[in-house]
């Protein structure tokens, strides 16, 4: 897919650099970015987290999600970066960036990609705390967030 950049990597990323790439295509006046970071647990004793993934499938799954977004909305450049491996507190985990001529399309597509990444892309988080290691449980709110797109006509 032209203008689609999908990276699954251990290395960190720079949001300013990613924004510049998205904004550099002079046809599209709206750029939306989402960045997710490792934050403290409610219990307050997170030390790190490990991101496992299914390497052969990950990029395929992300590419399919981006293709679906491109079918729904007129998009310019799209970037998805997801880190794997060990991440400590306040590190960046995921970046989704979308350029479009229409701001509502850019917002909708970025949120759509995140909602489906959360429910369809093969990543699993394990939290390391002072009390031990725990696999993160999937959230039903994530399923609900993804499900609402099925109900929407492709009208945007």
């Amino acid at each position, binding site marked *: 897919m032209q203008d689609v950049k999908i990276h699954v990597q251990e290395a960190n990323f720079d949001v300013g650099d990613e924004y510049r790439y998205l904004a550099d295509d002079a046809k599209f006046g709206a750029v939306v970015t989402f960045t997710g970071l490792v934050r403290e647990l409610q219990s307050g004793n997170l030390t790190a987290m490990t991101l496992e993934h*299914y390497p052969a*499938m990950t990029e395929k799954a992300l590419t399919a999600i981006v293709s679906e977004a491109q079918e729904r909305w007129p998009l310019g450049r799209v970037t998805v970066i997801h880190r794997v491996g060990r991440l400590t507190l306040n590190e960046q985990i995921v970046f989704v960036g979308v350029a479009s001529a229409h701001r509502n399309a850019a917002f909708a597509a970025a949120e759509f990609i995140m909602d489906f990444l*959360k429910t369809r892309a*093969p990543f*699993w988080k394990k939290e390391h705390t002072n009390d031990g290691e725990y696999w993160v449980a999937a959230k039903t709110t994530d399923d609900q967030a993804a499900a609402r797109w099925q109900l929407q006509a492709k009208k945007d």
Partner: protein
Amino acid sequence: MIKVLFFAVLRERLGTSEVVVQDFHGSTVADLIQHLQQRSPKWQQELASQDVLAAVNQQLVSHAHVVEAGSEVAFFPPVTGG
């Protein structure tokens, strides 16, 4: 021959990330799960949940999906990336 992969908590609980199934005569993902569950009570239990997700050749599929010989089948818990 079918290559079967496990990820995350399922991988840890089964104590393996990959098995090769030679003698599978069923048809669907659900059949393959049943076949694997015969290995031991632990496998019986860990693969019993309706929440176990399946991917065939790196595509998410339902448990009714037909598994062709030579496929790579992966089982894993609900995803938690992002």
